[in-house]
């Protein structure tokens, strides 16, 4: 269920790289944990991000979650649709629910991230802990 061409973080962000551009969002697991999303706080195009820096905030009715940047780079585009329709994050977190696009600074940082199968194993591990 998790796209093969994405990479994943422990904090449940996904990143899809295309040349020196990347798209970032949160995973299906994350949106399920959060519940109905009511508001998304987005950064501005031009913002420079370090790895693990908070790029935005997702609010559901009962929870708030920071979204961390999986790699460092500069924000080129933000998904304005999320302002009017935050539910997109719940309905389609891997495609229409993308959060930001950024210009990649250092591709080697991607190697730190998990593949789809590694992420799925990671999720299984979390479920056992519960």
């Amino acid at each position, binding site marked *: 269920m998790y796209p093969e061409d994405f990479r994943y973080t422990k904090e449940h962000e996904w990143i899809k790289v295309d040349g020196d551009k990347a798209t970032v969002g949160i995973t299906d697991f994350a949106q399920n944990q959060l519940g109905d999303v*009511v508001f998304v706080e987005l950064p501005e195009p031009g913002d420079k991000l370090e790895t693990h820096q908070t790029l935005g905030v997702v609010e559901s009715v*009962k929870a708030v979650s920071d979204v961390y940047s999986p790699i460092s780079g500069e924000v080129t585009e933000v998904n304005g649709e999320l302002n009017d329709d935050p539910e997109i994050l719940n309905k389609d977190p891997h495609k229409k629910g993308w959060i930001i696009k950024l210009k990649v600074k250092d591709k080697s940082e991607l190697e730190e991230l998990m593949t789809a199968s590694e992420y799925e194993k990671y999720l299984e591990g979390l479920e056992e802990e*519960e």
Partner: protein
Amino acid sequence: MNMNQEHLIFEISDKGKRGFTFPKMDVPENKNLTDDIPIREDIKDFPQVSEVEVVRHFTRLSQTNYCIDKGIYPLGSCTMKYNPKINEKVAQIQSFLSSHPYLNPRTCQGNLEILHASEEMLTEITGMNAFTFQPAAGAQGELVGMMLIRACLEERGDPRKFVLIPDSAHGTNPSSAHICGYKVKEIKSNESGTVDLDDLRKNMNKDVAAIMITNPNTLGIFESQIREASEMVHSQGGLVYMDGANMNALMGVCRPGDMGVDVIHLNLHKTFSTPHGGGGPGAGPVGVQKVLESFLPVPRVVYKDGYFDMDVNYPKSIGRVHGFYGHFLVVVKALAYILSLGPDGIKEASEVAVLNSNYIRKSLEKEYHLQYKAPTLHECVFSDKVQKKHNVSNIDIAKRLIDLHVHPPTISFPLIVHGALMTEPTETESKADLDLFVKAMKQIDKEARENPEILKSAPHDSYVRRLDETKAAREPRLRWKP
């Protein structure tokens, strides 16, 4: 619930209806008085209704509320104990109601004596040295407590940067620390549910101003190593703040002042029986050891040569947090409560609070999962882990309890227990009411296995059924519009 939907007052408003009239003016009227002042044309869409309509409106509205006067209200962390009616009566004595805050002390000796006597009672009960009544609620008390710590450390040369807060703490703790200019470092709870001393040792250093500790903690478990924790903090020059929200477990049994606590806030609307009022007014008085006394907010009530006075002459004071002296009428009620109970009654209150909670715990521990097995005092935290197997969550359990005519426990907190059901009956519940709650919870457990749908669609019989909180947040409608 067999009741018509109550309209909004604006929906029955119409021109020409009045609920109150004033006597004719006894001074000569100057019709041109406001000619050169910007005045409003109208108060658009403001209600116009009769007294009858207002009285019926609020009477009916009140009947849609659950309340302590109706039945058990085991909302964990809130100490929903019975509100004695004599306390309400004394708070309505005309002299208190009509006391202007700027009264000359000569003319309000009674009020000042009440504040002074209350301070004496609370210092004895908590083992502290002095109290301020300015904080209007627990959260404001926390803020004051942190400001006192900061002022003290500033005087020593370095306010420091961090405050340590257990991961089980109430949200007001980190929020208050932040407003005080501190960054928060979370301390882990160990498997017993108490503060992990190793984690504390690791994080305690000369950059840490204080630890904010709740005792018993939000799981209802006594932090038995609080003295060791306090010593660890003190040895590095830090101070110990105690969130006194759970004081109902300790009165007459032990005192925060004897545990190394430097500053504490109390919730008069929890431990000391003053009414919660649907969300206030409460009061969050703050008690301190001598080390922090000179920083307390001003004015302070002092007694000298047989006379009570308000003294502002404390140059190191952190200043004011309230327009006047805090919630005087709430203090009156709390003092009436303390005097009613006396030393043995106060202790009995805590003993029975702990008895009632343990009775519920024992009665339900087969059906409901307890994440932490350590002994608990006045409250305990179940979780929905067992019921989750049937896809039933703590929210569903809470909503079904409404059908069974009891108020649900606290469900959104503490954060370290998923699907929490924080249950605090308090000492004023009868065995019959405790059994009612236990019976309801057992029924729900059975329904979770046999008929989960009835839980997921609860409540069924209430004035409104389950409300759409998502819609409320996504499409905010925060006022009536025509």
